[in-house]
């Protein structure tokens, strides 16, 4: 604890005039102005499982909070409650994969990345088993503080060979990544958006289809290129609308596969002379921004580069909109930062 934090701990607080509730872990991500789809992961998994008996679902006491309950209701005999035991969850999923199944194992991102890492590494990734690890509360999507905020999950997992890493933006991504994960013969870690998930990308690109391993241009723009993943693609698109009113033309390249990164597309777009801004719902250390920077440097493509990401800190608890504003992930803050860089 820092001295400042210790001092603040003993400062009395007053009840605020406007009530702002801490976002509960079960809450859907607020996305004003977008239509939503309920539990796209759960329903997509049920659909995929209809014709594929290899698919089973396992969870560590978080079926309801990862939308796996939809699968459990549809296929009670193919659903395994492993209890509050994430190391076992991953080991048992590996065991089922050994027996020819395609296990979807769900928990929160913090528990998969921090608590179960060795088991994902040695029982799943080292043997390249087709276990699909689908995790709720990625990055800063809860106001409960660092115990539930997986701000470094991508950094942890990017170093793991064989593991494909997905960071979907919206309901379309979440639903379409399910069959793509099944078709991919190997382990996958996917960040999950659950509950009522907004439909974002098809508003800009009605023909959009998620493709594993591929970055796709969602919005063209002359002045700035935002390379983003996850919910930050939604925020970047919203910010681009705001900036368009100021005559700033922002392109948004959505990069839902963090690993393997679509370096070819990124380099092609990065070489067009625009300010390049990476935007990720993750620590500035070890996520999309650093992955893109590395690709650019290695290829000798060096546009002006800025990173929108969470700071290298344990984050505050509180209401999510407040926190997104505080840490620069809100639409208004993204637009403000980009204006300042031009």
């Amino acid at each position: 604890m820092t001295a400042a934090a210790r001092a603040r701990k003993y400062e009395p607080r007053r009840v605020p005039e406007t009530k702002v509730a801490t976002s509960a872990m079960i809450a859907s991500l607020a996305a004003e102005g977008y239509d939503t789809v309920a539990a796209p992961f759960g329903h997509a998994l049920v659909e995929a499982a209809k014709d594929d008996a290899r698919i089973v679902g396992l969870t560590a006491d978080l079926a309801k909070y990862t939308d796996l309950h939809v699968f459990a209701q549809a296929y009670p005999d193919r659903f395994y409650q492993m209890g509050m035991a994430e190391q076992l969850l991953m080991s048992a999923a590996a065991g089922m994969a050994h027996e020819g199944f395609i296990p979807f194992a769900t928990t929160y991102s913090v528990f998969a990345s921090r608590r179960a890492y060795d088991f994902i590494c040695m029982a799943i990734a080292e043997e390249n088993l087709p276990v699909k690890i689908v995790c709720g509360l990625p990055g800063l999507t809860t106001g409960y503080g660092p115990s539930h905020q997986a701000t470094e999950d991508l950094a942890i997992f990017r170093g793991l060979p064989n593991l494909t890493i997905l960071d979907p933006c919206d309901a379309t991504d979440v639903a379409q990544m399910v069959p793509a994960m099944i078709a991919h013969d190997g382990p996958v870690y996917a960040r999950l958006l659950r509950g009522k998930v907004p439909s974002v990308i098809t508003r800009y690109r009605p023909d959009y289809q998620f493709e594993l391993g591929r970055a796709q241009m969602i919005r063209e723009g002359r002045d700035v290129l935002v390379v983003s993943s996850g919910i930050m693609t939604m925020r970047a698109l919203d910010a681009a609308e705001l900036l368009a009113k100021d005559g700033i033309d922002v392109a948004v390249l959505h990069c839902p596969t963090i690993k393997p990164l679509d370096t070819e597309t990124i380099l092609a777009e990065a070489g067009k002379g625009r300010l390049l801004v990476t935007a990720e719902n993750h620590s500035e250390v070890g996520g999309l921004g650093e992955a893109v920077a590395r690709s650019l440097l290695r290829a000798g493509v060096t546009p002006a580069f800025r990173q929108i990401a969470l700071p290298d800190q344990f984050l505050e608890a509180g209401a999510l909109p407040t926190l997104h504003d505080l840490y620069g992930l809100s639409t208004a803050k993204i637009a403000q930062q980009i204006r300042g860089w031009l």
Partner: protein
Amino acid sequence: MPELTANLRSNVSLARRAWGIRRKALQMGEVQGQGYVGQALGVADVLATSYFHALNLRADDPEWEGRDRFLLSIGHYAIALYAALIEAGILPEDEIGTYGMDDSRMPMSGMASYTPGMEITGGSLGHGLGIAVGMALGLKAKGGDQFVYNLMSDGELGEGSTWEAVMSATQHRLSNLICIVDFNNQQADGPTRDALAVGAEAPKWEAFGWHAQEVDGNDLDALVAAFDAARTCPEPKPRVIICNTKMCKGVPFLEEREITHFVRVEPDEWTRALDILDAEVPA
């Protein structure tokens, strides 16, 4: 009726099989001048009983769907399992000289991608039993009657993940899961009983809902009886056999040496150890 086990297909005694496993492990130890020979000599009787009495397998088809699965959670015991796999005809004897060498199929720690018959990549301790739970669930879901055996060490009783798996196996009534604990009371820094609160092993597993037995892991008759009881127990619960073994068993001058995680064997002692084994070949 399951496929005949290797033992029933041949007239070679378990004692002779255990002798063969010890001999091959020593030969591999000599190749590298090191290895987990103490553990291999200690667990040889357990492996002989597993591979030549209990396990249903096909030497010419190590991935045969109908086989019983045998997981080596303790990856560093690979030298012992290689010896058993060679004895069983799954690995060729003429590869003993490659043990631990570049490009060998027998690396110092057991890995699924290197070795026929090695079901999982072990070595990160506390993994095997959880994987065994998943395999046992998978086999039940497929309607198979195969057993999953997980060989773990006493040191792995210190890993929390082991107990997650212990509880889960009971929860899912995994009667097709047999856990074998090699209790040689030796881990890296010293006696297992001095490291974490182990003790009252069988009652502890029983309290978790397992069918638990504790046997002299160097007594072949006792092992056969324990494996038979584990395989035929009618209750819908997982089974554990805690095998109290003696490190370096079968080579008296090594048995008497101050036992450590890595038993010290001088270059000229490999031949001496092999000579001792060769002086008394079991029938």
